[in-house]
């Protein structure tokens, strides 16, 4: 599937901001077996006094930027054309058992970004909790194939948790969302990660976009899409990381566009930084994920 994706992130400030310094994690990159970035543009208004592009530890596209002129509004706009072509899921029952995965992750001799070890431990936004692990454990018998176990956990979150925008915020801890059995995609992802890690299974956080399909007969509403989050579970050397979306109880497929990968939200938050200001800030985010008709020549053979 070919997408044109626009994201606008706008801050307006009650009192003009004298200066700001930020790290932006809004630039999608190629992901083997999932997506290819054909074009990407990042626009910041007002013009930054310094801006530099690079990659973080996990390979995400990031930009460091500073603005030292006073401004009362900051607009960060990205446009990306991305080709998503998903490799088929491995046979869930053919993946290694939970116990084997636990052992393989601990024995890993890889400290690189793709290593399962980064998904093993408590992280800033995902402290480990006994009760979440216990809740997940009923799906994860030691000899059960890990992907089958993880998909059951995903489905249970989808069934047992209420999707409730506004009930939680970016700093809500998994324990809080778990206790309330409600939240948004970020909370579901964090709960699922906390549970799997609690059992010694590697899990990590993916931020990205989800294509939404308007109800039949209705037009797509511009800007109505949102950023999304899901989970990747490590299913052994062979299968690697497999994306699972507990909000929708589906594996990450052609509707999922990956923006950034990390241990949790704190690793991939789109903006981290400080503004020199004493006033309040208002944030507005708009996302459009528009499927593009593939030019005839590129169309896959049917």
């Amino acid at each position: 599937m070919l997408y044109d994706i626009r994201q606008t992130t706008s801050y307006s400030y009650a009192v003009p901001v004298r200066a700001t310094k930020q790290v932006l994690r809004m630039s999608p990159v190629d992901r083997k077996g999932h997506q290819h970035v054909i074009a990407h543009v990042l626009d910041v208004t007002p013009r930054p006094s310094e801006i530099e592009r690079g990659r973080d530890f996990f390979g995400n596209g990031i930009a460091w930027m500073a603005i030292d002129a006073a401004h009362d509004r900051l607009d960060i706009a990205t446009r990306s054309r991305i080709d998503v072509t998903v490799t088929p899921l491995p046979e869930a029952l053919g993946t290694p058992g939970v116990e084997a995965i636990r052992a393989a992750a601990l024995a890993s001799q890889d400290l690189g970004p793709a290593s399962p070890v980064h998904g093993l431990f408590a992280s800033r936004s995902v402290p480990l909790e006994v009760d979440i692990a216990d809740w997940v454990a009923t799906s994860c018998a030691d000899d059960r194939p890990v992907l089958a176990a993880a998909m059951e956990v995903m489905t249970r979150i989808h069934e047992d948790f209420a999707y409730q925008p506004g009930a939680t915020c970016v700093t809500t801890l998994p324990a809080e969302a778990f206790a309330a059995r409600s939240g948004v995609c970020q909370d579901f992802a964090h709960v699922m990660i906390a549970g799997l890690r609690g059992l010694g299974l590697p899990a990590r956080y993916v931020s990205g976009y989800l294509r939404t399909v308007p109800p039949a007969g209705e037009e797509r509403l511009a800007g109505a899409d949102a950023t999304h989050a899901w989970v990747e579970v490590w299913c052994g050397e062979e299968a690697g990381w497999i994306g699972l979306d507990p909000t929708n109880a589906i594996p990450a497929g052609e509707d999922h566009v990956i923006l950034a990968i990390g241990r949790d939200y704190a690793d991939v938050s789109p903006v981290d930084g400080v503004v020199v200001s004493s006033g309040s800030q208002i944030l507005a985010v708009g996302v459009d994920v528009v499927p593009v008709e593939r030019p005839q020549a590129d169309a896959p053979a049917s």
Partner: protein
Amino acid sequence: MSGAETRSIAFEQAAVESVLGGYETLPGVRDEMMDADGQPRAHWVAFLASLAELGPDDLRRRFSAADRYLRESGVFYRVYDDAGGGERPWSLSHIPLLLEKSDWSELAAGLVERVELLETVLADLYGAGSLVASGALPAAAVAGSPEFLRPLVGVKPRGGRFLRFYAADVGRGPDGRWWVLSDRTQAPSGVGYALENRLAVTRALPDVSRTLRMERLASFFQSFRTSLLKLEATGEGRIGLLTPGSLNETYFEHALLARYLGFLLVEGEDLTVRGDAVNVRTVAGLKRVDVLLRRLDADFGDPLELNAHSRLGVPGLVQAVRQGGVALANALGAGLVEAPALMAFLPRIATEMLGHPLALPHVGTWWCGQDVERAQVMEHLDDLVITSAFGGRIPGLPRRFSAVGADLSPAERRRVAALMAQRGADLVGQDIARVSTMPVWNGDRLVPRPFTLRVFLAATEDGWEVMPGGFCRISESLDARAFSMQRGDRSADVWVLSDGVVNSATLMPSPENVRIRRSSGTLQSRSADNLFWLGRYLERAEATMRVVRALVGRLSEVEPSAGPLVARVLSLLSSWGAMPRDLARANPARYAIAALTRMDLPGALPQLVRNARASASVIRDRFSPDAWRALLDLESCLTTPVPNAASEADAYERADAGLRIIAAFSGLASENMNRLAGWRFLEIGRRIERSIAILRFARTFAEPAAPRGALNVLLQLADSQITYRTRYVMLEARGPVLDLVMLDPDNPRSLMFQIQRIADHLHVLPGRDPDAPPSLSERLVARILSDLIARTAESFELQHFEAMEGDLLKLSDEIGAHYFIQEPEETVYWPVAT
């Protein structure tokens, strides 16, 4: 052996017996002073003999003098969990640990070997990664550490070293060998306390410390400073000590080290990154800081790439490090090798990298992320300490969990077993290390207490140097198992007894090593701000005490009832917020006592001196110990509760004592503070506050309608009575009084004098462009000055006083806006994903 020698040894032995009476070592535990046969070890004999010679009374006196020294020099350890969140004095055990040179050299050599290995490990883990790739170290044993800072992977620290300052906690086992208990590589603390302990003990026992010839500490610091200066690439010689701030438990030490090493004490908000460079905000604009001695935990170092919620860090610091714009000691991420999990692999890594095992053993450690080790730990659970592999919280167990298997409750045992099955990687098992005991003076005799020793090492140009001394932490309990001594109740100095010539470097920097610094521009804006307010609070305190003295002194003779003069004095207190509303129609003395002692009045003295101390405490590196002591004295003098029956005489006495301490502080400031920008801001603050007070006094007591005796009160408040008497034989008259109080340029209490000093200071403040037109501050001062010059004493009217006061308040704001104001930095909101 001659007869005389025999006699003297016999005498010495008898004397030693007298202090050793009843000293009983703990069974199965080695004692530093006594050997297994109950005889004092040879290197303790001379010391014990000196103690015996002094006798218990003299010792008590000397030891309490040492305590007083520590208290007065403000050696504090901030205690977070204290109910008051306050500071408590560091408590010193006065008997030092004595170590023989040969014993020490072996320990020192072992630690040098160890820290060199740790450096290699860090360089590999943040660089080539061969230790993990080769299987010498499981990737999970690295990734599990919160101090494995992923943004720093692939970043080579400037100067090539991750570690520049290292500390190890060691203990001596029953076999007489030193064992490493833990490594400190993040931002080791304690070295400043070690310095203070040394000063305190050598003060208490000057004769003893001279005869015993212990190794001095100063050259260690000199080498360390020199090596950091060599790292400095800009040639500006500016090195910062980055502190989390005055709320940190070891802030005292940060201030002490900054002073001692001649580094700028900076907090995150003092620094800003521009391009690749880290700059400090000073009263003269941004100045580059090229090297930072880091006492802030790395994770808090940069809200952009590390902990986004940190308000203590420097936005963009990681990027500056990455681009080589700043050198940090220790590097960000150096805390990684503190993890107990890593200790489990060090023996193998040593063999692989050095070709032989480490000379100095460490406490046996098994990481439970491996099958075989986990099984062994479970098998021997009762005899091992179970603790966090990476120092973090373990779900289902209390914070900072560390316990011997045998002591686990059934619930904890079940939890540990469950964790082992699913998350063994979070745990290590460690041998129970038993440490030795050392003598502690319990008031009249010596008793043995278990201790651990922290040893400090600094990277210098000639390799690692070990500080010949250290910091003992002594436990009050008799449990000599190292794991149970995390906190330590008392500390002790460590004397390495020299067998040769003692390096005679003093604790003061030697002349050839003192860096020539004339730059008055490196005054942090934050420090200037605090100095300015310190000046204002002190002056306000002084003025209030003069008013109090007037109320309970002369005034009560002149006007015994609550007459119009008293009413005017009270109106002053009221306008300063020093008047209680709940004390209607009381005797003037009650008001005076209230202004002196009421904790709840914002303008009363307890609050004023607290504010002064608060301003001073965040810039503690700027004061000499004497000046700091004066501030502490002032606070304790004016915040001690008074009995309800306090009399006028008590109030007068207290105000008098307070004024004397302020005078002492002013003397110390004017005699001991360099005429640099910092002193000028303190001065400007005081002069502005004093000017405002003079104007208020004049407005209240020199208006034409003022009652009889008012001019006398004015002279008294302006501390100008004596001058007046020597100049005029007549009673107070308005013209001459106002001339003396307002216009006389030679009266250090006159308004003219204050304004002239302010003008002088403003003129030479750093950052002032000599070619630029005068600043708003300078113009405000010029306006007051020209008004004073043009005016005669008789022509002053109410509105003149008011206009000048208005200008002074504007001046204060303007100085703040120009030199101090730093708008707060807010964290950017995070977009929520849905």
